[in-house]
């Protein structure tokens, strides 16, 4: 994956797109978990969500930009 992507005449870092993609994924996962009420089994839901995001963004970022 290229490090910088041209978008309407401006170069955008590829990582930014990954970040936005991860936000969307996070939102989907969040909605599903919220719908089924699974957050009740988690000690600190907010911390869990932050950690989940770090895992998503970290793993995808490292996979794409080794």
């Amino acid at each position, binding site marked *: 994956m290229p490090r910088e992507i041209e978008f309407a005449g*401006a170069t955008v870092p590829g990582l930014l797109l990954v970040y936005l993609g991860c936000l969307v994924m996070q939102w989907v996962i*969040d909605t599903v978990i*919220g719908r089924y009420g699974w957050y009740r089994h988690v000690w*600190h839901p907010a911390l869990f969500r932050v950690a989940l995001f770090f895992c998503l963004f970290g793993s995808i970022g490292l996979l794409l930009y080794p």
Partner: protein
Amino acid sequence: MIAINKPWLADFLVGERQAWIFVFKCLLAFYIAAWLAMLLQLEQPATAMVTVALVMHPQSGMVRAKGFYRAIGNVAGSLCALLLIAAFPQQRELFLLALSLWVAGCAGGAMKYRNFMSYGFVLSGYTAAIVALPAISDPTSVFDGAMMRVSEVLLGVIVAGVVSDVIFPDRLVDVLQRRRREHFEQFMAMAGGTRLGSTPRAHMEHAHLRFVRSAVQIEDLRSSVIFEDPETRARSSRMQLHNLRYMSAATTFQSLYHLIDRLQRQSHPGAAEALIRLYAPVSNALTAPTSQHLEPRILADRVAACEAELPMLAAELREAFRDDADLQMEFDSGATLIRRFASELHDLTMLEARLRKAQGRLPDGIEHVDFKRSNDYVAPLITTVRGFLALSMLSLFWINTSWASGPSALLTASYFCGLLATSPSPVSAAINISIGYALGMSGAFVVAFYLMPGSDGFMMLILASMPLMLIGPYLLTRNATLPGMGTGYVMSFAGILALKNPMVYNPEQFLNDAIGSWFGVVACGVAFMLIPTVIGTEWLRRRQLRKLRQQVTFVASSPMAGLLYHAESSNRDLLHQIVQHTRPDSDELRHLLSWDLAVHECVRAVIELRQDMQHAELPPPLKDIMQRAVDALARLYDAPDTRRWQDACRIVGHAIMLTTQALPRAQACCRAPLGHLLQLRAALRDDESALAPFIVTTPEQQRAA
């Protein structure tokens, strides 16, 4: 541990504990944002820090909602700045004119929308100014400026959101749940405990006001909580439905109360007595046999059981009025209301039970409803005009004097024009904020020119700036007694300190900027004095009251789809807006409430009547006269006077007569509309309602009475 046996001390300590947790979270987020901004080599770490300071709130849902709208406003403003610079790179007059228009339009938008959406509008105006103004002499740099600004603000929003959510979170969702439960229980206690026919009107008016407030509050909370809690987000539309069912049940209950009250006053105590007896099973179902607490699940079953026995009881009680057709009709009208109330109660309790259920997936397919706000267009328009005048005057002043600090003045003015627009007393709010502003400036001065030059490294920076910084968040927790002061302090402290890496020391520019900002605040205050705010003025309240009455006109002519919920929610929103600026226990409030009750009852009955009119078997002449009755009512509420009252009363009476004549032939389609027509007529003739001044008693009515 020492036991604290002084309650005030315990309260004080609990309050202080929360306040200091908040201060700690603020400082943590503040310095993390500063550190990250410096690490990422952003141009102005101060922007990220100001963002953190402004977005922080004790409750994490608030932070996320505010941050979300701040981010949107910021992106919109940056895009607008790009467009403005691209369109007028050389013409400063046109540029400033367009900028003033944009900022003023955003201020108007801030006025029109509620909650944090309003804040987003303020921000989009302000951001356009902050991005475009520094680029005015060097248009090519605007893109980088906009990128920097967006990155800085987003960094601040993310840091504030994560810190407030993860560290000692104070969850708004708990508040929402507690409130909803409280209101549900209050309403059930009210519906079960009120002795219809012997409760004073003033008591009901207060209850009505309380229910209106709670409906609006819950909606406000919900709109913030969805940012915090995914579970609430999944249940969001169910909660809206719950709120709207609750509102319609409250309206039905009020109508029922008034119906019985009227019957008693019109010396038909027999009919009133029968209706009270018919209501008894409902009230029994809601009150627990002993002092035990009833779960909504059980309540729902009990209400369903009593719903089933109502028709039998009604038929039995109706027998007593066999000889008097008029009284029989009045009784039927009341019985319809009671049945409607029971079925609404059942829906409400079922939904409450489902919302409280802790585990599991929620079934799909619920009705999708929206809480409709009621907006006025004059107040936003005035705000827009004021903002435009203030900014264009400042721009002219800047161009003509070539004042070097013009941009800072313009910036501050653009921020406060939007922010103060929603305040009912903008001048005193401006004074408060400017005191905070001045304090923050002096704090920043001390830190920047006495403490920081001797310090080295990030740790020393924290140590040097923290003691004076923590005053700001602490002031924020004292918003109830010192409104706006904390905001002013954190804004000016973080903004004027303008931490940078490496730090730039320039006392001359510091003072010029400070004076410029100060001038902007003052210019804004002057604009508010010249074109005073309309919020909270008697003029606007009268206007809103007229709008409240026109709700009847609205429901008489709008398409039926979703009309009930639209009317219920916008009525309440309007009343809530007016009540906020009315003194409690004043004659004005009583006047307002009596109008609101009349409007509520009439709106509901008109909607039900229009629904009945869609019945396929209803003969066309009847449909025609009912439509005329609805139109006459709409005209009456549009501009009440005695002539229109007479018209309405005559046409409704005529409709009742025709429907009664048709009743033996078409029982199925005429019974329901007849009940609603009777209810409307009784409401019209009620001499204790808001319509009382317009009632004319004709000789024949006097004879009848």
